[in-house]
């Protein structure tokens, strides 16, 4: 069975506890390059947007450097995130259970996961984060190019640049909010951060939060190795 949400490198290692490989070294490196860029962009962007944060330009060597370097970090982020997109888009396709999961969001927030449908490698919340990031990064790179005066000034009118910078600001604020959700979820759901550091989570974590994925992994592993292990229930 070709599970839609089992990604390359995902594997289950029986033991005590069961260990599950969730992200390959490549995916983790890709993630952290993107993460670093996003944080640097947020800091430099906020410095240029809010006068009270202007002092943060000192971290980049002053205002001139911040202005010059911000777009380049954006380019790195765009390509880095594109790598993540290629890795993760398939497992983030919307499934019927995602609607149900989202409709029962209150049980997510109250830690009553037994009232939620079983989900694959990503739950609806993660998928919303993934697609929001994807769309917002496209908006940010497009509007960013319009206001990158150093290389693209003659290509657009001043009025177009005004709209671009407004959209850029709105998208930036939104992506920071999405980022807060993303980081908070990783902290709140214990055992999650290991997925992006060591690449592994425990079987209990996979069972609790991504049971469908876990089951598919076990089944897949069983059929791959033809050991005849039968999935429980």
């Amino acid at each position, binding site marked *: 069975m070709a599970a839609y949400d089992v990604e390359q490198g995902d594997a289950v290692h029986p033991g005590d506890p069961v260990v599950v490989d969730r992200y390959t070294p490549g995916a983790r490196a890709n993630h952290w390059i993107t993460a670093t860029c996003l944080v640097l962009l947020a800091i430099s962007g906020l410095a240029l947007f809010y006068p009270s944060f202007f002092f943060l330009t000192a971290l980049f060597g002053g205002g001139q450097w911040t202005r010059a370097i911000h777009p380049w970090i954006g380019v790195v982020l765009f390509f880095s995130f594109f790598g993540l997109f290629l890795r993760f888009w398939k497992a983030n396709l919307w499934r019927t259970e995602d609607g149900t999961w989202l409709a029962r969001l209150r049980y997510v927030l109250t830690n009553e996961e037994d009232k939620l449908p079983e989900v694959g490698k990503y739950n609806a919340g993660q998928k919303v984060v993934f697609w929001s990031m994807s769309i917002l990064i496209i908006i940010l790179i497009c509007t960013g190019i319009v206001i990158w005066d150093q290389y693209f000034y003659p290509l657009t009118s*001043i009025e177009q640049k005004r709209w671009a910078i407004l959209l850029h600001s709105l998208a930036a604020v939104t992506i920071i909010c999405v980022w807060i959700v993303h980081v908070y979820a990783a902290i709140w759901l214990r055992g999650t951060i290991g997925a992006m550091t060591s690449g592994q989570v425990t079987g*209990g974590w996979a069972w609790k939060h991504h049971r469908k994925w876990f089951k598919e992994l076990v089944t897949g592993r069983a059929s791959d190795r033809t050991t005849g292990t039968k999935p429980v229930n």
Partner: protein
Amino acid sequence: MTFEFELPPAPTQNIKVDMGEGDLVRRSASTVPSPARQLTPVAKLIDVSKCIGCKACQVACLEWNDRTERIGFNYGVYDNPVDLTPESFTVMRFTEWVNPESQNLEWLIRKDGCMHCEDPGCLKACPAPGAIVQYSNGIVDFDHDKCIGCGYCIKGCPFDIPRISAVDHKAYKCTLCSDRVAVGQGPACARACPTHAIVFGTKEEMKQHAVERIKDLQSRGYKNAGLYDPPGVGGTHVMYVLQHADKPEIYAELPKDPRISPVVVFWKGLTKYAGMAAMGAFAALGVLHYLVSGPNKVQPNDEEDAKRLAGDR
């Protein structure tokens, strides 16, 4: 009444600088204490009807501000350079206009440059503290040491005036010769103008002078002659006397009702506050949720279930 605007000769001794940090009423991306005194608002009045297009003002501007315009390209028109540049803070814009009523060809020559708005869009848009300042006499000036070259001033300006230098990545525009005004002199362009098409004085004086000029123009058949001091930006400290004040756009697209673009106002206003509120709310909700429901921990029975499923071998 004749109104003479012979500017006083340049002082050579006892030079007193009477305009400084203490006279700022606005400072970009920061606040200033309200000044202890109010300087008399000043203005430059450009009488388009008196301009002969000699470009002495352009030369005087380059000379005084110690700028060197590179040798450009002749596009077959009188405008040279064809646009404002980081060097040329002012350019004469020549328009050949056929008056539909008289069928006369009118040569309209407008000296373009910073209008020194009472409500400056450049200053509103600028993110660098103190890079753009406004003095209580109305002069809007750039402080190049603080400029970061982002080009936001270009987006804020309703007149398309500031230009970013490709050499030092800083924004440049007319200073209204703030350094000359500070010592009681008028701008270099006004000093150089051979026909007194450019005059400088207090804003009140300039308005009065404009009234005389408009009367004169109307007596010569320019019934729509008038003063260009657009209220949309709170008035300007560079004003024009136009023969056809009802149609400013014929003067090389001088905007009819300039104002800071609503897009810029929204970007620098509501977006900033709503953005801060949204980001703050998301962070606060995260903290609150953590305090209320605590961390979501994997339980031992989850690990047991996982072991059962994975096969405990």
